[in-house]
């Protein structure tokens, strides 16, 4: 007679779950990497904090994967890759400035909490019906704060300071923007999401945070295309964005300067072009295998800990390792897109797609700027760059994707139950 079909499906799903042992192997590799790396640096610095990081970072990776995996149906692969990148940032910072690394480790803890909140948010608030207006008003108000009480930093007024803590509102507003835009696009209500996006863009232009404005614009446009498949309007949006870029070039002197430096940083290598030149030299001096962890001259690059951390990674670990880091980002984008496509509900799929595209686009913009593929902007490298706002918001975006992944798993289990019921 053989095994009934529904039992075969149950057995196969059990086998599928057991095959999630690749998660164990990957976690072990990541833990081994960081155990040896932090141990090496701890030998050099001979501080108890170094030895503490040697054991705490791998333990956090292991514990997070297993504890969160038991609480929610999180995507273990995505979580492992996120942990790898976060720990890489802590490692590189520890090799150059241990204080920054301790702060980054603390922000990672906050980021984990943020990620769990976002997973919980996606699971509980499957509809934004009661929160959408509050989120729009809150986002615009929070984004307007730097203009009112903020301080200008590096030519942009996009930070607010509370005693010793500094926050970049645009990093957190991107989360609510994705949620609001996805909700209204799924409901096919054009005006609310359009007004919200335009409001945010205007505020960012006033703050002169053009890099973040670019991210907001492109992600909104991509979400529009994902939800409507309207090619003519999307092309119009691309043309409009191009027009705005040309207008920005003509209107803002610092944009002209950035483009000129991108074309030829050597023309002013001692002043304005110094950062780009030092970054390129760091990439070159690392060659294929790198100069060695904790070696090289990363501190000669201005703002190496945020904008040019990728150059520091390539200098110390080599270009091949740099390509590996890029491939990790590609894997994250692939996974996020797969989770979005597997979602049964439009709103959840759009949220996952928006979060994935935000991470992917931000990575492209910063790494493209570092390797002189495109003009440099002021965005950070997701998960890796120093900075609490950047790390926490990147973890929150991952939390949104994980929330959708856990809902997908619930839907699949329901399908299996329905199959057994037939």
């Amino acid at each position, binding site marked *: 007679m053989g095994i009934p079909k529904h039992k*075969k*499906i149950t057995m*196969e*799903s059990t086998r*599928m779950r057991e*095959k999630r042992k*690749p*998660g164990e*192997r*990957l976690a072990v*590799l*990541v833990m*081994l*990497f960081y155990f*040896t*790396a932090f141990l*090496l640096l701890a*030998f*050099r610095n*001979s501080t108890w904090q170094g030895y503490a990081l040697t054991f705490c970072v791998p333990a956090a990776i292991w514990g997070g994967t297993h504890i969160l995996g038991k609480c929610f149906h999180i995507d273990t*692969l995505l979580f492992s*890759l996120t942990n*790898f990148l976060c720990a890489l940032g802590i490692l590189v910072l520890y090799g150059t400035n241990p204080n920054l690394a301790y702060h980054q480790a603390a922000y990672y803890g906050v980021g984990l909490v943020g990620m769990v909140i976002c997973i919980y948010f996606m699971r509980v608030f499957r509809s934004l019906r009661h929160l959408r207006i509050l989120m729009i008003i809150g986002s615009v108000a929070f984004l307007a704060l730097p203009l009112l009480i903020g301080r200008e930093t590096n030519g942009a007024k996009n930070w607010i300071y509370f005693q010793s803590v500094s926050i970049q509102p645009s990093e957190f507003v991107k989360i609510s923007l994705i949620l609001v835009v996805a909700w209204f696009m799924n409901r*096919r209500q054009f005006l609310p999401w359009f007004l919200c996006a335009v409001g945010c863009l205007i505020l960012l232009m006033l703050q002169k945070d053009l890099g973040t404005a670019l991210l907001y614009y492109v992600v909104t446009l991509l979400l529009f295309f994902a939800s409507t*498949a309207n090619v003519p309007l999307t092309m119009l949006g691309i043309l409009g964005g191009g027009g705005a870029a040309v207008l920005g070039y003509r209107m803002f002197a610092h944009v002209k300067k950035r483009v000129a430096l991108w074309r030829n940083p050597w023309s002013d290598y001692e002043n304005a072009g110094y950062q780009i030149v030092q970054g390129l030299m760091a990439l070159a001096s690392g060659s294929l*295998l*790198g100069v*060695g*962890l*904790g*070696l090289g001259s990363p501190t000669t690059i201005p703002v190496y800990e945020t904008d040019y951390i990728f150059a520091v990674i390539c200098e110390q*670990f*080599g270009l*091949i*390792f740099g390509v*590996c*880091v890029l*491939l*990790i980002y590609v*894997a994250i984008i*692939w*996974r996020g897109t*797969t989770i979005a496509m*597997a979602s*049964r*509900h*439009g709103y959840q799929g759009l949220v996952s797609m928006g979060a994935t595209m935000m991470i992917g686009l931000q990575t492209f913009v910063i790494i493209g700027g570092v390797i002189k593929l495109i003009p440099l902007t002021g965005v950070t490298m997701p998960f890796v760059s120093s900075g609490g706002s950047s790390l926490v918001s990147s973890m929150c975006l991952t939390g949104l994707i994980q929330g959708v992944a856990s809902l997908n798993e619930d*839907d*699949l289990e329901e*399908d*299996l*139950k*329905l*199959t057994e*019921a*037939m």
Partner: protein
Amino acid sequence: MSDELYSVLALGMRYWFLALGVLIVVQTFLWLYRDHREKHQRLRNLPDAGMIGEFVVLSGGNDLEEGKVIPVPWEGMLGSSRHCDVVIPSGAFAPVHLYFSFEKRMGLMIEAARGRECYVDGVLEKSGKKHPGERMIHGSILQVGDIVLRLRLFAGLDVERKALRKPEDDVKEYGMPVASQGVPRPGYGGYADSQTEEEPFTGLHLVKDEEKDGNSKT
């Protein structure tokens, strides 16, 4: 540790870190590939995963074959464009003709796209505030032009009998228009009681706006 000793160690450990980095990437992409394959296997074993039912073509005009089955997902767009979630390759349907979403206990909610109209169980549904949407349950009929589709919901879906209403309840709670007398509304007796495929389809009396306003019906 002296700087010279550290430099030697760090230079030696480059190969170790690079090897681990490459292994991590390889393991990642192997996992992605394995998951991709498992997903296809799962879809083969659960071909209806992600679907709530199917439309059966009762009358296809010149474009569709009668009896053709079209799977229906949880939510999406229906139209003739290939970008739609449910593609009806017929000139009677606009590229995006209507939007649908399945709500537990309620059934499949239908909302016509702007400027489009359709008939759900004989009741006109078109875009606009006067038409908040129509509800389809097991056995409900969707008609656009001369294309007639019947919805079959899968067993086990959470569409409770108490959610199945009489037309008068729809008027009370949702202000939905009442179908004219004599229009078959399959499913209101519970989807177990609905029209079966054995019952011949005899056509629908389509209720237009004027008739709903109280004018005499044919």
